[in-house]
């Protein structure tokens, strides 16, 4: 069965420090992978998506970057965190089908930048 792992679950980082959040998928190949940020009052904002190794599309300009070094691995990074980067980050794998499109989400990472 398909499984999506995301870690860490919580993270407290000082302003200016680097960030690396990791997401891995099991039970499928060549998945479409996504990073969303969940913010109060703003819903789920799509940050990045990837349809294959090395292929990254950015949805919004920001202080973050994403990489896909392996087929089932998706990483969200920052060289220097800002206070505004605080939030809840979700990795998702979206199965695209004619009738069975569905998104599978990781457990999420609560990032607090202090």
């Amino acid at each position, binding site marked *: 069965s398909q499984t999506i792992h995301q870690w860490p679950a919580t993270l407290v980082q000082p302003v200016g420090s680097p960030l690396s959040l990791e997401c891995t998928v099991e039970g499928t190949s060549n998945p479409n992978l996504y990073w*969303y940020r969940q913010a109060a009052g703003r*819903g789920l904002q*799509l940050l990045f998506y*990837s*349809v294959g190794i090395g292929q990254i599309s950015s949805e919004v300009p920001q202080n973050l970057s994403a990489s896909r070094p392996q087929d089932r691995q998706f990483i969200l990074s920052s060289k220097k965190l800002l206070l505004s980067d605080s939030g809840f980050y979700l990795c998702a794998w*979206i199965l695209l089908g004619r009738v069975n*499109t569905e*998104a599978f989400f990781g*457990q*999420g990472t609560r990032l607090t930048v202090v």
Partner: protein
Amino acid sequence: AQRVTQPEKLLSVFKGAPVELKCNYSYSGSPELFWYVQYSRQRLQLLLRHISRESIKGFTADLNKGETSFHLKKPFAQEEDSAMYYCALRSPHYNQGGKLIFGQGTELSVKP
């Protein structure tokens, strides 16, 4: 641009009362719409798809193209329905990987 709007941040009802969570979308073609739910301490998960015309946990949602709406309804709310609900629209740009665009979310609180 495609957009999903959920006008209510919080909806509070009593057990047994009807529930309607509103969702409006902006898209000129034939939309593909979903409702996702996040229960406390659980992952965000699919509740239902409009294309399946299904009823899940007593919830239904009808696509109204004239009003560009996809409201989620349940005739008798239960306490276990308390959760965060997100309406989502699949991006029509399939060469972009089929993005899901989410609304702001509505927190449903069902009181005993």
